[in-house]
């Protein structure tokens, strides 16, 4: 809000002055680093990533590569970073050399031509070290636009104490999950089996992924859009009914209320991904020993189908002056055995590398989960991820439309099925207006 026009103008001046200074310092920085070919001193690469404590791996890299210095900056996670990245890429300057991007957002940056094709720097040599679906999502034809960093095969974290107290078995199918949701909420109206957060588009997409929905098939500039296919409507109706019954909470996730709900037993499960177990220890420390991990519930009993939620890649932007060095860094960070060990065992990233998944030291008991070998559940899940899932090249837009529509549905103004139809229509209109050929 900007009511203090007079005051704010003065403040604006100060801001303008600071911006000018910043611009000057940036341009001098660029001049300093610009002289590429003749550079004899070490090359400095800026790296945007929100992985905590990443410096450990970077130190190791700098030790073995004395000519490359990495300047790591955490400019915010997920959407916060993409907003800055998109703006900097569009502006033509200010983007980092190397950047962390989640799988879902890669296609939009690839389409805009702002990522360096790493195959010219030998990226295809490391292809076989990665879980196949991750490589499928970072490459197109023979071109490679990023190196997989970590993944998020899905599973179910649940409160063993609550399930025991109310004498409920751990659900293995979605039908069972829905029944127990209602039983649990009836037994104790303060407890919800989980939270349906309409504002978490990526999470809802992972549910679509597991159900076998195929919302996008992209072929160059031709795109098939089917956000309301049978599988998607099945998922939408399922959650619509649960929300309507009142047996699930509809609060937003990733905020203090939600952390508190996970900690104090208001939420009995979290449908989540492999990176979550260590996160949960961070935001629900008092619930130590009460949580366990189980495979994701299935749509048909006996099936073993999983999906992926989150996980990231490391890409090199076209604003980078030293793409060869940057390519070497992203390859090294995600394939060097020492580095991978730091990423997966000290920073708790869930590996995209085959070797790390098979590493016996990765399969350790975790006391927060009552001594359960939590990673084992997710390693199995990683084998069951549907590999043909595709993202749209304008996923930001898709998520924001989906979130608008799901929120309207949660508020009871439209049905969940209608929300999917509306999203479909909005996205088709958008894709056409952006110049894509849309087929259905």
């Amino acid at each position, binding site marked *: 809000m900007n009511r203090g026009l007079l005051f704010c103008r003065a403040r604006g001046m100060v801001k303008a002055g600071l911006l000018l200074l910043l611009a000057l310092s940036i341009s001098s920085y660029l001049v300093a680093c610009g002289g590429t070919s003749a550079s004899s001193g070490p090359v400095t690469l800026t790296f945007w990533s929100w992985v905590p404590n990443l410096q450990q791996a970077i130190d190791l890299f700098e030790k073995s590569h004395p000519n490359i210095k990495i300047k790591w900056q955490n400019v915010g996670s997920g959407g916060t970073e993409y907003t800055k990245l998109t703006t900097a890429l569009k502006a033509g300057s200010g983007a980092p050399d190397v950047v962390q991007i989640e799988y879902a957002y890669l296609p939009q940056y690839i389409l805009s031509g702002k990522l360096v094709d790493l195959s010219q720097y030998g990226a295809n040599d490391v292809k076989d070290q990665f879980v196949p679906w991750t490589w499928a999502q970072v490459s197109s034809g023979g071109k490679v636009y990023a190196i997989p960093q970590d993944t998020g095969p899905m599973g179910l974290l649940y409160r063993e104490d609550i399930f025991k107290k109310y004498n409920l078995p751990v659900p293995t199918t979605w039908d069972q999950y829905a029944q127990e949701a209602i039983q649990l909420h009836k037994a104790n109206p303060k407890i919800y089996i989980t939270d349906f957060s309409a504002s978490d588009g990526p999470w809802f997409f992972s549910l679509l992924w597991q159900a076998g929905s195929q919302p996008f098939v992209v072929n160059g500039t031709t795109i098939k859009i089917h956000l309301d296919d049978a599988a998607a409507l099945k998922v939408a109706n399922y959650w619509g009914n649960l929300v309507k019954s009142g047996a699930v909470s509809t609060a937003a996730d990733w905020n203090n209320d939600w952390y508190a709900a996970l900690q104090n037993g208001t939420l009995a499960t979290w449908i989540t991904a492999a990176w979550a177990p260590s996160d949960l220890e961070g935001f629900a420390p008092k619930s130590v020993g009460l949580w366990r991990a189980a495979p994701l519930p299935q749509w048909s009993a006996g099936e073993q189908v999983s999906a992926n939620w989150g996980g990231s890649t490391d890409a090199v932007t076209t604003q980078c002056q030293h793409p060869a060095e940057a390519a070497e860094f992203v390859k090294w960070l995600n394939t060097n055995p020492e580095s991978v060990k730091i990423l997966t065992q000290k920073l708790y990233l869930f590996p995209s590398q085959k070797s790390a998944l098979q590493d016996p030291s990765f399969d350790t008991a975790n006391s927060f989960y009552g001594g359960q070998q939590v990673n084992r559940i997710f390693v199995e899940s990683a084998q069951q991820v549907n590999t043909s899932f595709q993202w749209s090249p304008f996923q930001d837009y898709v998520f924001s439309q989906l979130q608008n529509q799901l929120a309207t549905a949660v508020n009871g103004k439209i049905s969940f099925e209608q929300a999917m139809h509306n999203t479909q229509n909005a996205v088709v209109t958008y894709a056409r*207006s952006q110049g894509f050929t849309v087929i259905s």
Partner: protein
Amino acid sequence: MIPSRHMAKHSQTEAIQQAIEVQELAPPASGLPSALRLWRRWRQQAVIPYLFLLPFLLLFSFFILVPLLYALWTSFFVERLIGGTTFVGLQNYQEVLHDGNFWEGVRNVLLLLFTQVPLMLGLALGLALLLDSQIVRLKTIFRLGYFLPYAIPSVIGALLWGYLYSAHIGPFAQLAELLHWPPPPFLTAAGLLPSIANILTWQWTGYNMVILYAALQAIPPELYDAARVDGASGWEIARRIKIPLIAPAIVLTVVFSIIGTLQLFNEPQIMTAIVPNLIQDHYTPNLYAYNLAFTNQQYNYAAAVSFVLGAVVFVFSYVFMLVTYRRGQR
């Protein structure tokens, strides 16, 4: 105030003015040719003021005028992911006028404008009159106290209130739980707008009060003496002398509030993390423009939305000024 001191000040300035005139009119002591003298005078009168204005003009054009014109220019184009940029004339504006999301946002801020602004300015006026009256002690402390919320960055303020409003961890909710009441409905579909109105009132009442209080301080106290001699009560003085005399300041606060409310952004942007189902990406027009540009990458359309919002702001401010001006004429 003592009249004689007033006079003394007056005669002092007069003397200075006379001195300046004498200097300018006096024949050149060194015998400079008249053309040079004229040039000097011209330089003094015409050039020097602009030299002093230059820093402002430069910054103003760089950081306000140029971006504004650039945004206007962008709003006439459409940039597609495939096919690049094309000129489309007024097509973006046509779309904005038919955009339900945009008008829903405008409706929200108009609701605030017609409910929260009168309440806040009434409070501000009341507090300013109280501070100006003889009945209050410790004026400085109260004045600072009321103004303090304005000194807190609005982002921090919104975060703070978001916590206070929380239905689980907020203090009001916890108090309600102790008393076995349902949590207060701050962040529900019905309670959200009043909750935001409360934050705005908390933050801006003190600011507006200071403007009004400053205007009250400028009223010559002789008027009060005269009114008291005529037998006017404190209430009558406030109603018949103070309020009419600070009318221009009141108009100023209303115009600021119209502009500020219609451009509401910070509070919903912060609180959308807590209640995204209620604060969607088009809750206020400015929020909509922001999300169009930086989430959907529809920069051109966002520019058009901004200019239509600018027009709405202009219309409301202008109509208000017109109405008050007409009234003043009568």
